[in-house]
């Protein structure tokens, strides 16, 4: 991360943003931002030149359990497109929830070339009913015993539903 980058102070308030906005970014295999669309600039509050070359976790909210990103990258590395619900941190410190679709483009040798992610707003009811409670439990497990513990909690949760994370997300959004 750019040494000049100062992580914003978290403000526990939702960001007011135009919910019709589509937020797009392109990153490399390491999650480094190649470019973002105008929607990303408007919603995140960062300018293009503050984002390009930075790791995508510049907008990661501390309430996000790491295990969700592990599941995401495990799928992308296999060449599988993925979907996730993510709490992002704007430059103002306020948060915004998004439903993100990740498309991976592979090199000829099967490794990741680029990842394109398209994010749209997600209904508050979905967040409050399903996602916030789950992520809070995962985060708590992670803080106490690390990512292995949160992975176990997530697997137990999904096994009880007989669903993958992707199926769970698609189900609650349908």
């Amino acid at each position, binding site marked *: 991360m750019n040494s000049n980058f100062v992580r914003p102070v978290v403000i526990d308030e939702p960001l007011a943003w135009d919910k019709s906005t*589509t937020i*797009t970014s*392109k990153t490399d295999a390491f999650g480094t931002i190649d*470019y973002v669309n*105008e929607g990303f600039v408007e919603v995140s509050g960062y300018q293009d030149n503050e984002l*390009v070359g930075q790791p995508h976790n510049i907008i990661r909210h501390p309430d996000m359990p790491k295990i969700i990103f592990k599941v995401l990258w495990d799928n992308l590395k296999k060449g599988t497109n993925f979907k996730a619900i993510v709490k992002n941190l704007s430059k103002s410190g306020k948060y915004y929830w998004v439903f993100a679709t990740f*498309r991976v483009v592979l090199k000829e040798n099967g490794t990741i070339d680029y990842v*394109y992610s*398209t994010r749209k707003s997600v209904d508050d009811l979905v967040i409050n009913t399903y996602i916030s409670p789950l992520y809070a439990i995962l985060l708590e497990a992670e803080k106490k015993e690390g990512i292995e513990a949160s992975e176990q909690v997530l697997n137990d949760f999904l096994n009880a539903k007989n669903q993958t994370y992707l199926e769970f997300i698609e189900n609650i959004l349908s």
Partner: protein
Amino acid sequence: MCQTVDFTEAKAKHLAWKQTIRECLDGKTQMDPQKIVSHEHCDLGKWYYAEGKDLYGTLQPMHIFEIKHIKLHKIIKDVCMFKDMGDEEMAEELYEDLCATSDKIVQLLTQAEQLINN
């Protein structure tokens, strides 16, 4: 007056490019690969790096313009890549992003023009 002509031409060249991309997506034309990959070799880039930057590069809108223009060419390249891959949906999604950045570029050129002429 010469400065006004510069910006009018720059915007016209840029908008012509956007139309070319649309026609490419619609299968009506092919694009010059050299122009696709380089923000320095399109007509707007040639104008900017030949004279625009020296004349107006210190203006804030032109500084942002350069960043947006580089981004525009990255998006153009990806629109074409997804089109070639047969992923029309992603090509169209990125075309929307391209249009938004294009609108921003025209806005910035207009702001720069107004700063110079006022």
